[in-house]
C-alpha cells in the first residue's frame, strides 16, 4: 500500500517538477543541510547542559525555554525541505536502506523527547542549577547519538551502494523492500 502511494507520488507533476528543476532541488537540499546547524546545533548545546558537561552556569529551565523555540524552528525547516526532497525522488528514497535507518533513528529520538518531556524534566526545578541527575544524562546521550546518526544516515542516502539494482541477498531485499534480482 505504502509502495503504491509512493509510486503515485512519483507521477505527480510536483515530483517531476522538483526532480527536473535546475535550482529548486539544489536550493531545497542546501536549506536542508543549513537547517541542521539550527536544529542539531541547538539540540547539542541543550544536551551538553543536560549531560552536565558544559554551560553549567545556565539554569536547565532557561536552557530549555530559550533554546528550544529555535530547535522547533529548525525542525519545521527540516521537515518542509525534507518532505520536498522525498517528493522529488520518492521511489528510490522509499527503498533506500539509509533512509529507512534514518527514519528509525528519528523515531528513537522522538520517543526519547517524549520520555524527557513527560518524565525526566518534571522535577527539573530541583536540579535547575545543581548536579544533573542520571536520567537527564541518559536522555541527553541518547539524543546526541540519535541525531548524529540521523545526520550521517541522511548524508549516505546519496550513495547508491544498496540501490534496488545492486541488491542480491534476500535479507537486503527484505530490508529495502526491493524485488530480488533473479540473476
Amino acid at each position, binding site marked *: 500500500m505504502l509502495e503504491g502511494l509512493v509510486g503515485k507520488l512519483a507521477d505527480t507533476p510536483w515530483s517531476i517538477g522538483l526532480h527536473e528543476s535546475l535550482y529548486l532541488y539544489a536550493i531545497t537540499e542546501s536549506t536542508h543541510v543549513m537547517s541542521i546547524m539550527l536544529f542539531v546545533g541547538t539540540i547539542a548545546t541543550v544536551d551538553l547542559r543536560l549531560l552536565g558537561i558544559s*554551560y553549567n552556569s545556565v539554569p536547565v529551565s532557561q536552557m530549555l525555554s530559550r533554546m528550544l523555540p529555535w530547535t522547533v524552528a529548525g525542525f519545521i525547516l527540516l521537515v518542509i525541505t525534507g518532505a520536498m526532497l522525498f517528493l522529488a525522488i520518492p521511489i528510490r528514497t522509499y527503498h533506500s536502506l539509509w533512509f529507512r535507518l534514518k527514519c528509525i533513528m528519528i523515531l528513537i529520538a522522538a520517543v526519547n523527547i517524549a520520555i524527557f518531556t513527560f518524565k525526566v524534566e518534571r522535577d527539573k526545578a530541583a536540579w535547575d542549577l545543581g548536579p544533573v541527575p542520571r536520567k537527564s544524562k541518559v536522555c541527553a546521550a541518547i539524543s546526541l547519538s540519535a541525531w548524529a546518526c540521523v545526520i550521517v544516515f541522511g548524508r549516505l542516502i546519496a550513495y547508491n551502494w544498496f540501490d534496488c539494482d545492486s541488491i542480491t541477498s534476500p535479507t537486503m531485499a527484505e530490508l529495502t523492500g526491493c524485488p530480488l534480482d533473479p540473476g
Partner: protein
Amino acid sequence: MSLYHTAQNLEASALGQTIRESTWLFPAIESAHLLALALLGGSVLILSLSILGVGLKISPALIFKSARRYMDAAVIVLLATGLLLGISEPVKLYGRQAFLVKMISLVVALLVTYAAFNPLIKRGASGLAMRSVTVMTMAAWLMVAMAGRWIGFS
C-alpha cells in the same frame, strides 16, 4: 608552478588517491564534516541568539567560556576534514565557482569570528557594533555552508 598543476599533483598524491579509490572513506569524512557543522552552528548560535536578545538571558561572555571550546573543536574538524575532501578531488574543485565562493566566505567567516566576534564577546561588548558583528558572523558561516553544499551541484 601554476595552481592547476598543484591541483593535479595533489590529485595524484597517495592520500588523494586513497580517499578517492575507497568506497567508504569519502562518505565517512563527509559525515564528520557535517557533524562538525552542526556543532559549529550550535556554538555560534547560542552566543548570537543571546547577543541579539532572543536566546539565553545570560551574559554572552559567560556563555563564551563554554562555547569557545566547541567552536574551536568544530572549526578544527571542519578544516581538517575539508582539507581531506579537497585533496581527493582538487582538479574538479579547481574550476568550480561554488568552491571559490566557499573559500572566500570561509576566510571572511574565520576573520570575522576570530578577529571581531570572539574578542568583542570576551570584552563584554554590547550595542550596535556587537550586534552587527554577530549578524555578519552568522551570515558568513551560512554562506560557507550554502556554497559548500552547492559544490556538489555545480
